[in-house]
Each structure stands twice: as C-alpha cells, then as structure tokens.
C-alpha cells in the first residue's frame, strides 16, 4: 500500500473537480439566458395552464404582452380576481374586475329518459373515437357521447358524468375553456357566472327530426327569440343560443319554450 495509491486518485479527483466546477459555473454565467424579472414575476402569478382564454399563446406569452405589449391584466379567467390583483400590483396599474365565466354542457340527452342509442359501442373509450362512427352512438348526431373527454382534460375536476351526459360544477369551474376544445361535438359553451339561464341543446337537425330523436331537443321554433326583451337569444341554424352579456336573467324565454330545453342552472 504505497502512499501513491492514495495520492493518484486524489489528484485525479482534484483535476476532475476543478474541470467540472469551472466549466459548470463559467457556462452558467456566460450562457445565462437573459430573462426579464418582471415577466417571470407575472408568470409566477398566473396559474400556468396555458389555456389561451386571454387570447395569447400561453401564460409566458401573455406575461410578455402584459409587461411589454400593455395587454390588460384582467384577461386571465382561470386566475380570476386574485391573479389579476397580483399582476396589477406587479405592474402598478389599476386593478380591473375579471368577469368570472364558467362552462356548461348544452345537452340533456340522458339515455333512456330523453333519447336512445343507435348502436352499442365498445371501441375506444373516448368521445373523439366514438364520434367517428356515423357521428356517434346517439340517435341525435349532436348529442353528448358520455365518454368523458372533457372530464379528462379538466384540471379542476369540475366535470362529472351522470347517466351518460357530462355536467359542469360551476363552483369548481374556473372558465379556462380547455374542455370546449376537447369535446368533438362542441357541446361545452361558456357563460358568465352571474347569468344562469342557458339553452341545454345544440341540435341543428330542425323540428321534425329533433322531436323524433329527443324529448328535450330545441326545434328552432324561434318563440324565445321573439319574446326576449333584450334580444339576447338568437336562433341560428335551428338551435337557440343565449348571449351572456345581453341576458338579464329575466327568464321570459324559459316560460315560453314549448320543449323546456331552456333551463336555469
């Protein structure tokens, strides 16, 4: 056991240690990516969902636009007032209230109460896959398929499925609109939290066909459109839809609807 047997490894490790340490510290100094602290602060205040409700391609992009592009600080709906307050504090601008929005499902096609299935489907358990086979297993081509693609996407666990139709829990929903993109039939629509009256149908197959398909479907009779005092309801290609901004919760349309598919959530 010569002393060299100890010294050689020590020298090797001194060489390696210095080499590694120098390289790492020098590299991380020279090649440091110049990031703007303010942008990082704003990104930290945002929920980081990259959902795109604010109209930008993600939280990072929205933060850059807030700091440099002067974008408004209250466009992040999932972040809600709390995120808007934090960002306004960082940016020193006045805090503006964020209009709280939530999603809802425009379909009540429960099987067997309201509608029925065309075929039994045991392929891939996803709405997207099921909707490829003759526009879905339901008799109505626009109905909810109940395989929960929207529920899988929702980060807040706000969507649950009861007897084959998705339902959104307004208390948990933050309005991030990730589910609207996941539904193949586009049944998930956005409404303001304060406005409770919604049309729970999206079937564009007109009167006679909808009556045959579903007990709850909108037949596009336009009665609601005529009676609405604020013109908030419009019937476009055989199905009614409510513009949240104009609606005042007066429920006039609910009484007059012969099919009962305008509902208060």
């Amino acid at each position, binding site marked *: 056991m010569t002393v060299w047997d100890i010294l050689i490894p020590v020298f*090797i490790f001194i060489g390696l240690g210095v080499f590694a340490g120098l390289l790492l510290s020098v590299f991380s100094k020279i090649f440091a*990516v110049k990031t703007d602290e303010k942008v990082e602060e704003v990104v930290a205040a945002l929920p980081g969902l990259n959902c795109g409700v604010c109209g930008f391609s993600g939280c990072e992009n929205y933060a850059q636009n807030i700091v440099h592009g002067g974008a408004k600080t209250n466009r992040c709906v999932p972040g809600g007032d709390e995120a808007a307050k934090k960002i306004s504090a960082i940016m020193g601008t006045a805090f503006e209230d964020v209009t709280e929005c939530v999603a809802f499902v425009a379909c009540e096609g429960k099987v067997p109460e309201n509608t029925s299935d065309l075929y039994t489907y045991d392929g891939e358990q996803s709405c997207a896959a099921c909707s490829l086979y003759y526009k879905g297993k339901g008799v109505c081509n626009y109905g909810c398929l109940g395989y929960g693609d929207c529920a899988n996407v929702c980060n807040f666990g706000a969507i649950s499925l009861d007897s084959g139709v998705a339902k959104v829990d307004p208390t948990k929903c933050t309005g991030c609109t990730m589910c609207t993109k996941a539904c193949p039939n586009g049944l998930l629509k956005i409404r303001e939290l304060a406005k409770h009256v919604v049309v729970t149908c999206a079937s564009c197959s007109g009167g006679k066909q909808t009556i045959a398909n579903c007990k709850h479907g909108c037949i596009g009779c336009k009665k609601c459109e005529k009676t609405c005092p604020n013109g908030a309801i419009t019937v476009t290609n055989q199905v009614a839809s409510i513009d949240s901004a104009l609606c005042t919760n007066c429920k006039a349309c609910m009484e007059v609807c012969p099919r009962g598919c305008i509902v208060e959530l």
Partner: protein
Amino acid sequence: MKELMIILFSAILVENFVLNKFMGICPFLGVSKKMSSALGMSAAVTFVMLMATALTYPIYKLLLEPFSLDYLRVVVFILIIALFVQLTEIIIKRFVPPLYHSLGVYLPLITTNCAVLGVTILNIDNTYTFAQSMFNSLGAGVGFALALVIFAGVRERVDAADLPKAFKGIPATLIAASIVSLSFVGFSGIVEGIFK
C-alpha cells in the same frame, strides 16, 4: 466491420437495453405517454449516450486503467455524465430555446437514467475497443428509441381501452410492456443468423 455490426444489431434487437436488460425503465414508463415526448426523449438519450461513451472511454483507458483504479469508475463516470448533461442543458437553453422547450424537461432526467451509466459500464465490462463501444452505445440508444416509440404507440391505445378499474393506468401499461418485451425475445436468434 462485421463484428461492429453484430454488436450494433444485438444492442438494438437482442440485448435491448430497456426490454431485455431493464435499464432506463423510469423514463420508459414516465415519458411514453405521447409519441412526441417519446421521440424527443429518445433523441436526447441517444445523443447523451454517444457523447458519454466518447468522454468516459478515453478517461477510463488513460486515467483509471494505467493506475489500476478500476474501483473508481462508477464515481468518475457519473460525475462526467452529470457534468455533460448539465452543460448540454445550459447550451441548448441559451442557443436553441425552441429545442430546449420541447426537450428541456427530459434533459435533466437523463442523468438519472440507468441506461446511460449502464452502457458506459458495460462497455468496460465487455472489454470493447473504442469503436466497438461507440457502436454499442449507438445500438443502445437506437434500441431505447425503438422500444420507446413502439411502446408510446401501444400505450396511447391502451390508455383508451376499456379496462377493469384496477388495471387502468400503470398496471395496464406494464402488462403491455411485458408483451412488447416478449415480442423482442423473438429476435434472439436473429443476429447470429444474419451475420454468421
């Protein structure tokens, strides 16, 4: 040249690092949810494996073997691999941000990837020459990529399949992996057959 080909193809097919030697299972299970992440991860792993072998082999031959310090190889190798991965991460983050964003989350994962350290140690254990060990790591990397990509495809189907509640998620993935690994056993005679 034939010897190199044997090593290359046996590393890809027969002695596949993931399915036969069980190295690199953590990223194999964790990252193969989507095909895009699988491709990104396997490209990064193959690159790091090649560079790691290129760095560790000479150091072993020049520094460790002459002084018969074979017992230090684990510490020295892992230090070099960790150093190299962190440097690559810094450089990619600085010069190629889009690549960093697509690869970024997987680069630090590679330091704790058993396959990378495994291939460097096996190169020494099998007393390969430098060319042979480079081919071995290329084979290992491509084998890793092959297994990962095949498995990503299988997994996307498995996740959507109608399974009993207990088997949803990871158990189904593992049983799918067992069948894919079984299919790789079929290659065992192939390399000797082709190149004999």
